[in-house]
Each structure stands twice: as structure tokens, then as C-alpha cells.
């Protein structure tokens, strides 16, 4: 462990472990990924791991395509949920409509930033092969997946911050990251939970995020 890292590990061993292991994953050789290479967008998104050692713009482009893939997933989820009649109770409609607007805006922003390099929207299956068959007819199921996607988004952006350090894109990514956190808090609130799991949010590596998202990609 380097001298820099020891500062973190002294004060918050668990957090330091999470942060450091997340970075190790980002920079790792990618042996474990082969198990969930399911769709073309995922293959492209995973290419970000290949960028270690390459020119910065390529690395940034790959992080943005990874983010775009997640935003496509979220935008499609809320688009379907907001259109499903009788799904969302009236008093929560404003919340989910607003979240949907944000996710659609994130898609547009990232597509614009990437231009011709932007990945296409993945085919989605929010039932995850039938596991959540009533996702757009049972509000509890919808809410569960909403929280999953929002918490996953927060952890995913957080896990990529180090890859964007020193680039102008970092601030933009942080500005999306905190919006996802606002969503996550309110969705959890609607589910009668606290909006958080503790004083520090944990990052997730790209491979962990993709493993969680893959069941929803057709």
C-alpha cells in the first residue's frame, strides 16, 4: 500500500478498502468479465477497461459510453413506467415523471458529448427473463427496480471518477452523479426507507455494475 493510500486506510479501513479495490478493478486485467459478455453494447462498454495505457480521450470516451449505456437503461425504464396505466399511484407521479426527464436529459447530454462515438441504445428486458414479470403492473416491483437502478447509477459514476480525474468531463460526471443520488434517496423514501445506507456511499467497479445490469439487457 502506498503512502498516499495509508492516510485513507488509517481512518476508515472499510471505506479505504472499497475505494482501493474499486480502483484495482478498474485497472485490472479483465479475466473475470468473460462470464457476462452478453450483448454488443456491453462489449463496447467493457472496452473502457482496455483504455488503461491509451490516450486520455479514448479512456474518457469509454467511460462516457459506459455511463450512456446505464442512462439508456434508466430512461427506457422510466419511459415505460410512466406510460403504464395504473402503475404509479397519483401522489408519486410527479417524482417519477421528473426522474424520467432527468434520465432522458442525461442520455441526450452524453450522446451529444460522444457524437458519432456514442453507443446505440441496448435492447432491454426489465422483467429480467421473467423474474420481475409484473414490473410494469405492480408498483412494489417497479419501485424495487427503480431503487436498484438509482443506487447502481450512483455507485457506477462514483467508481469512474478516478478515470475522469484531470479532464473537463469530471465535473459533468459529478453533476450527473449527485442527481442520481437525489433520485435514489427519494425513491427509497417512497419505499418507506431512509434515503441512504450510511454516512459514506460506496463506489462500484465497472465489472460489478455491468454484472448487476446485465439481467436487464435483452
Amino acid at each position: 500500500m502506498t503512502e498516499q493510500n495509508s492516510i485513507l486506510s488509517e481512518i476508515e479501513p472499510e471505506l479505504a478498502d472499497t475505494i482501493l479495490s474499486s480502483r484495482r478493478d478498474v485497472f485490472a486485467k479483465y479475466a473475470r468479465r468473460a462470464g457476462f459478455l452478453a450483448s454488443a453494447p456491453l462489449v463496447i462498454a467493457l472496452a473502457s477497461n482496455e483504455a488503461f495505457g491509451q490516450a486520455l480521450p479514448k479512456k474518457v470516451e469509454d467511460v462516457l459510453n459506459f455511463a450512456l449505456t446505464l442512462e439508456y437503461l434508466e430512461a427506457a425504464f422510466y419511459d415505460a413506467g410512466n406510460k403504464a396505466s395504473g402503475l404509479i399511484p397519483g401522489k408519486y407521479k410527479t417524482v417519477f415523471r421528473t426522474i424520467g426527464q432527468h434520465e432522458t436529459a442525461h442520455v441526450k447530454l452524453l450522446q451529444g458529448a460522444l457524437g458519432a462515438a456514442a453507443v446505440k441504445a441496448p435492447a432491454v428486458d426489465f422483467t429480467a427473463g421473467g423474474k420481475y414479470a409484473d414490473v410494469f403492473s405492480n408498483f412494489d416491483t417497479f419501485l424495487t427496480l427503480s431503487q436498484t437502478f438509482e443506487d447502481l447509477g450512483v455507485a457506477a459514476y462514483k467508481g469512474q471518477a478516478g478515470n475522469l480525474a484531470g479532464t473537463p468531463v469530471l465535473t459533468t460526471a459529478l453533476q450527473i452523479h449527485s442527481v442520481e443520488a437525489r433520485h435514489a434517496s427519494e425513491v427509497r423514501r417512497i419505499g418507506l426507507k431512509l434515503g441512504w445506507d450510511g454516512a459514506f456511499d460506496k463506489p462500484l467497479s465497472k465489472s460489478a455494475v455491468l454484472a448487476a445490469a446485465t439481467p436487464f439487457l435483452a
Partner: protein
Amino acid sequence: MDMQTKASRRHILKWSGVGAGIMVAGSLLPNFGISTALGAELGDGDVGVLNYAYALEQLEAAFYIQVLETPFSSMQPNDHVILSSIRDHEIAHRDFLKKALGRHAIGGLEVDFSAVDFGSRASVLGTAEVFENLGVAAYNGAGQLIKNVDYLAAAGSIVSIEARHAAAISDLLRPYSAQSVGRGHVDAKGLDGALLPSQVLPKAAPFIKTPVTAASLA
């Protein structure tokens, strides 16, 4: 980028509760440490950024400690659970940063909450909303100033908690509203706020008696 250009200029900022607002004393002046006897100099580089975060967390922690020590009369169990949890988080953030800074940490700041009516739910939650949203924008804008990616990851683990708090406080004020997922702070592109220290410090100044200077943050 514009923010990075600004960030690279060397300023002396004065952050004080006596209405001095902000003093920018030329772009090439060294830090004379003029206020070290009377107040707090945040310091250079990552130490400066962490001390800046530490100052804001001190302010937040002190505020919520006061909120729970002198609860407003109409405090419902739900208010109490959420505000107590947020208080515990801010204390954890404050203590984390103090330990990370070690001997470089600024001292304890003297706060001034005379503008807050702690007997009023609207005043307390309104102030909490200001602090949480200021915290989100402050961390979002400070990310680009951090050199060490481990510190960036630590800041990322804190900022999304602040964003979760912001949503929870907004929800207490306006349940299930668009504001509870960021309206008013998230722009049409779906981006949250990002402010530089020079923009944040004047907003925090009315609540802090101790003069705080930042020689190298902008």
C-alpha cells in the same frame, strides 16, 4: 475549461462572518498567512480542498447537533429519525476529514446560527436545505481541484450522501414533489450544481464567525 482556468489562478480569499464577503487580493500574491493567529487558512493543493470540505462539514455538523439539542416543537418522529441520521453522517464526515488532514487540519470553527429560528420547522428545514444543496454544489465544483484520486474517491463517497440528504430534506418540506428529486437545483440538461470555493464561501460566510482564508482555492 472555464472553471479550471479560474481554479488555476492564485487568489487570496477571505471568508468571514462579519459581512466582509470575499476579498480577492490580486492574482500573484503569496499566502502571507495573515490570519493564522485569528482564523483558519485552508492551505494549498489537496490539503486546501480537504480543509474546505472540513470547514463545510463542521458547519453542517454543528447545525444538526443544535437542531437535535433544541428540537422544534412540532418535530414528528419522521423528522427526528431523518434529522438524527443526517446529524450522525455530518459528524462522521467532519471526523473523517479531520483525521485525513491530521496536523494540517484547520481548527474548530465558531459558527453563528443567529439567523435560524430553531423553534420553527420551516426555518430549520429551510436552512438544512440550503446547507445540503450548497454542500452538493461545493463538492461537485471541488472535484476538479483534487489531485490525489483517493481523495477524489473519498469526496465522491461524501457528495452523494449530501445529495441524498438534500432530497430527504426537500421531501420533508414538500413531500413527493419535483423538488424532492432536484427541481430548482438540476438544470434542463439534468445536471446538478457545481460551484467553486470562491462562489461557495460567501454563501457560507454568514454562518461562520471565524475568519477563513484560502490562499490557493478559487
